[in-house]
């Protein structure tokens, strides 16, 4: 293999290195195989770039070593300039002579010595670099959306309008989700049905907004709606997920039903209507809600009397088939959007408010209040108690189950505003009703929300800053005990009705779907976005997105925005038609694999599948699109049969060997730092730059750094072998555990280093020779401190005797 070494002095700024000496050293050390070395004052200048292209074109090296600035910036130069020159960026290995050597060392001798080690390390590693294979994977041109609430509907319409086939699934016999029950929305005070429109002005003929229950959503040629349906199973991977959908029959043919209501009138069965808290009744064949879509009747078959066919007899269009069976459909999708929404936290759990206890029938939840206030509700919008008496006073209690160490730690985001919305609705209709709202803090953070809150106060709604301690009854009235904390006084509010603003918790189906799809769930129980700042709608599984309140409580505007975000990211994938996987991924040596499946659990992205094979029954297989190449599987594998090209153990160790080359001569112990290529390595660059103006950043020259993909890649074996190669101390430098670029790598590494320290002690090596540190640029001084501390400790301990 012919390796070309390019040395660059960065315009003369790396003064601390004796370049002639360095060049002579590397030429002598790597004299075989037509290897060559050139020096340039500044390779990224126009003239320098031409020189680079000319030399590479003439010499045609198999691999390149670049000794100069950090490979984090040099990488782009080579990627740009080497186009068409028969060498890929993966064949360039950086020797960070600027940030890691020249700028941090104060003394020329010591800097040049370190530069030799760093350059030799990179040269060793370059000898292993082969071109990386590019894989191309086709993406199926359709999407599955789970949940047909506001988020699912928005995503479905966006994707359908872009021309993708959409399969949207919901458990209910209607679309709209929780929104259907909630009545009017805030702060616009329009109905839930008035929500969305497929149109974008200038593209479609469309009014500003449209009633989606009448929009013919399900008639869109690209949208396939599955009501009363659930996801039964999912197989496959990004590009081609096979989703099996189980649908319960509605017993009414959608395409025939004309909504004449004759069937319902003929039905002899009366049941409490779930939509209206059981306060009104419906038949066994019924329209779930008069504003529901699809506007079709459904039958609850288990409620039908034996042999009854009254509805079938009266149906003028022959739309009813009581023998309809459950169906199962399997569709293929290029990606999936999880729009499973939320549900109300069980109010009975917050015991001091006595929800559900006999005598407390007028303690209700906000969504129940929404139904009471709805014209389509059980009392046609009239606010009355369960016994029919009018409500003269209502007390709203906020934060029930939210913001609590006992129940749910999160703020549920919309409850303040929903309470205010209901208070305003009541006050505008019936100014004589006294409305109290007890709150901890009012969170009115959206556009026009504060104005909405002001309006409520204008209308005479009384806001009490205090979380009630208890709701009691004397058999007739309810009593709310609350401290008015702005007045330091205790209030006992005698009232007719209490509405609890319940916490929003994940939909009950989340766990099942998370298991089926191997998608991560947060400690809150909601689906976990890939990262908290951006890529919020992606999950740990490539091709699976999450939208709306399936990720956290949110109001409608945020839900719609999140859904559009998820749809646009899925669209990017689908529109591309195929994706190329370029960077290295994990490879499993199946001959040596003991089928322990530890790697399957170690991978935070669910990229390792257990695939059936004839012999020995199963095998572990890496999905190339899900794998991000972090190497957490590598370090978890007890059989050492997983490796990642470019970050293979022999590759890393070859570089370690170079970094230790002067170990025999130098009296100082040498510390090898295995730095994660993300925040950690960037922080070491930052330190180098910092040294230019602030000597406080300097760390000893016997600390030498090399990159790993993620500290999750650093196995116990690699640490052991690094010691064997001659390192006297090792720092594993990772990103902050909660900000790991590969989810759990840094955390896993911290645990591993902790265990490894115990093992070192057992084998007679002082555990102080191994440390884990975490950094990001703004805290990079933590590395400086750890490096100095270890160097100082090693001064006492001396070199590691083997």
């Amino acid at each position, binding site marked *: 293999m012919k390796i070309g070494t390019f040395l660059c002095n960065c315009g003369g700024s790396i003064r601390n290195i004796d370049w002639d000496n360095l060049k002579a050293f590397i030429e002598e050390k790597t004299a075989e195989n037509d290897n060559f070395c050139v020096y340039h004052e500044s390779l990224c200048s126009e003239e320098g770039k031409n020189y680079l292209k000319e030399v590479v074109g003439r010499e045609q090296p198999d691999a390149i070593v670049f000794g100069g600035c950090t490979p984090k910036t040099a990488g782009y130069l080579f990627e740009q300039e080497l186009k068409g020159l028969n060498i890929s960026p993966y064949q360039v290995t950086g020797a960070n002579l600027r940030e890691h050597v020249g700028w941090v060392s104060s003394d020329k001798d010591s800097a040049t010595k370190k530069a030799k080690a760093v350059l030799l390390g990179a040269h060793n590693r370059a000898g292993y670099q082969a071109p990386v294979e590019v894989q191309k994977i086709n993406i199926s041109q359709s999407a599955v959306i789970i949940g047909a609430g506001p988020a699912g509907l928005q995503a479905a319409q966006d994707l359908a309008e872009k021309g993708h086939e959409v399969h949207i699934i919901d458990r209910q016999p209607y679309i709209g989700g929780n929104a259907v029950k909630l009545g009017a929305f805030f702060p616009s005070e329009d109905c839930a049905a008035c929500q969305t429109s497929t149109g974008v002005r200038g593209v479609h003929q469309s009014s500003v907004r449209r009633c989606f229950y009448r929009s013919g959503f399900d008639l869109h040629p690209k949208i396939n709606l599955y009501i009363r349906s659930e996801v039964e199973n999912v197989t496959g991977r990004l590009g081609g997920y096979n989703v099996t959908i189980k649908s319960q029959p509605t017993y009414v043919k959608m395409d025939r039903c004309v909504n004449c209501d004759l069937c319902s009138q003929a039905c002899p069965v009366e049941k409490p209507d779930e939509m209206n808290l059981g306060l009104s009744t419906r038949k066994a064949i019924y329209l779930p809600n008069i504003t529901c879509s699809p506007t079709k009747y459904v039958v609850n078959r288990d409620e039908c009397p034996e042999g009854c066919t009254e509805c079938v007899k009266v149906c003028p269009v022959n739309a009813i088939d009581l023998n309809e069976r459950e169906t199962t459909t399997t569709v293929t999708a290029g990606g999936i959007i999880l729009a499973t929404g939320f549900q109300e936290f069980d109010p009975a759990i917050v*015991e001091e408010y*006595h929800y559900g206890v006999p005598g407390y029938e007028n303690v209700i939840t906000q969504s129940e209040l929404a139904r009471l206030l709805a014209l389509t509700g059980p009392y046609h919008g009239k606010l009355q108690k369960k016994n029919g008496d009018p409500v003269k006073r209502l007390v709203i209690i906020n934060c029930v189950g939210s913001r609590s160490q006992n129940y749910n730690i999160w703020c549920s985001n919309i409850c303040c505003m929903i309470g205010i919305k209901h208070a305003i609705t009541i006050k505008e209709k019936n100014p004589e009703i006294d409305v109290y709202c007890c709150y901890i803090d009012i969170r009115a953070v959206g556009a026009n929300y504060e104005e909405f809150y002001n309006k409520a106060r204008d209308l005479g709604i009384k806001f009490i800053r205090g979380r009630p301690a208890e709701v*009691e*009854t004397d058999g007739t009235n309810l009593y709310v005990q609350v401290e008015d904390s702005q007045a330091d006084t205790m209030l006992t509010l005698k009232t007719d009705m209490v509405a609890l603003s319940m916490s929003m918790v994940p939909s009950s189906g989340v766990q099942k779907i998370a298991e089926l799809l191997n998608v991560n769930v947060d400690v809150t129980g909601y689906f976990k976005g890939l990262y908290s700042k951006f890529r919020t709608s992606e999950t740990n599984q490539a091709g699976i997105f999450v939208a709306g309140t399936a990720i956290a409580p949110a109001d409608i505007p945020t839900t719609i925005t999140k859904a559009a975000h998820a749809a646009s990211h899925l669209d990017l994938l689908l529109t591309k038609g195929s994706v190329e996987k370029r960077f290295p991924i994990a490879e499993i040596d199946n001959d040596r694999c003991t089928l322990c499946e530890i790697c399957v659990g170690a991978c935070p992205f669910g990229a390792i599948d257990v695939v059936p094979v004839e012999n020995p029954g199963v095998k572990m297989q890496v999905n190339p699109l899900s794998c991000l190449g972090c190497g957490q599987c590598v370090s978890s594998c007890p059989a050492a049969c997983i490796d990642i090209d470019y970050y293979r153990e022999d590759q890393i160790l070859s570089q370690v060997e170079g970094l230790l080359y002067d170990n025999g001569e130098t009296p100082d112990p040498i510390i090898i730092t295995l730095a994660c290529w993300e925040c950690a390595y960037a922080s070491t660059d930052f330190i180098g730059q910092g040294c230019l103006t602030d000597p406080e950043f300097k760390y000893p020259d016997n600390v030498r750094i090399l990159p790993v993909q993620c500290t999750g890649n650093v196995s116990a074996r690699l640490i052991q072998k690094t010691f064997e190669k001659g390192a006297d101390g090792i720092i594993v430098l990772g990103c902050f555990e909660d900000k790991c670029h590969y989810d759990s790598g840094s955390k896993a590494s911290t645990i591993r280093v902790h265990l490894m320290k115990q093992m070192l002690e057992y084998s007679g090596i002082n555990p102080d020779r191994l440390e884990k540190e975490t950094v990001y640029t703004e805290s990079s001084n933590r590395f400086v401190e750890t490096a100095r501390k270890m160097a100082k400790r090693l001064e006492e301990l001396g070199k590691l005797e083997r």
Partner: protein
Amino acid sequence: MSKYAFFVGCTIPYRVPFIETSLRKTLPIFDVELVDLPFACCPDPGGVQAFDSVAWHTLGARNLCLAEEEGLDILTACSGCFESLKIINTHLKNDPDLKSKVNEHLKDVDREFKGTIKINHFAEFLYTEIGIDKIAQKVTNPLSGIKIASHNGCHFLKPTDIMQVDNPELPQKLDHLLEALGAETVPYLNKLACCGAGTRTTDMDAALKIAHEKIVGAELANADALVTVCPTCYVSYDIGQRLMTKHFEKTTLPVFFYAELLGLAIGLDFSAGFKMHTIKVQEVLDKLTA
């Protein structure tokens, strides 16, 4: 006959001894033998704990040691004693640091806390160990025709994570125990309210005002009597009602300790004790025999 170390406490024997009579007479009927041991104050969960938490644990542990040495579980009828002994027992069982600190002190009196016994409150004991059915079977004079406001009190139920007796926001066991005697229990305002005894040493007037709330709630619900399972609560309401006249209009709501009504229902004669109540109970007794 199952044997228990009877932790009689301070308030029962020297302030309301008729409650002690009701316990000593009723419990043997359910095959419970009460053994008296030279216990000291539990000690008071309000005063002593407030004074010095470690001393409270140590003095309490000494009481526990006496029962441990006899190999007997403790049965008490005072909710304050129940709270102290159960909290101390639980803390010492779960906190090795505290346990060794306390045992270091106990060494000076040749004792050691081991953590081998259980603490029972008689009301909880009746509910879980004897059972509602067995109690109902023994009833010969059902308490029909009277409405009872039941008062659980604080320390019978809280701190909930340690006491684990009943739901503190919706306690029902005491109501069931009363219903087993044939009585009718009524829901009433301030059912969960505290009797205020804990504030007595600091401010008697404030304590009386707190106790008064309960009387108001029970009277609004037309209760014939208030029933407690704690002697301290009993004192707050029975003797308390007389003292309340300083601030409020006079009230005469009879107050009973549960074991007294249990005795009545199973045919025992407690007339000597009933005469010692501050608020006269004759009206209720008449209603029962009518």
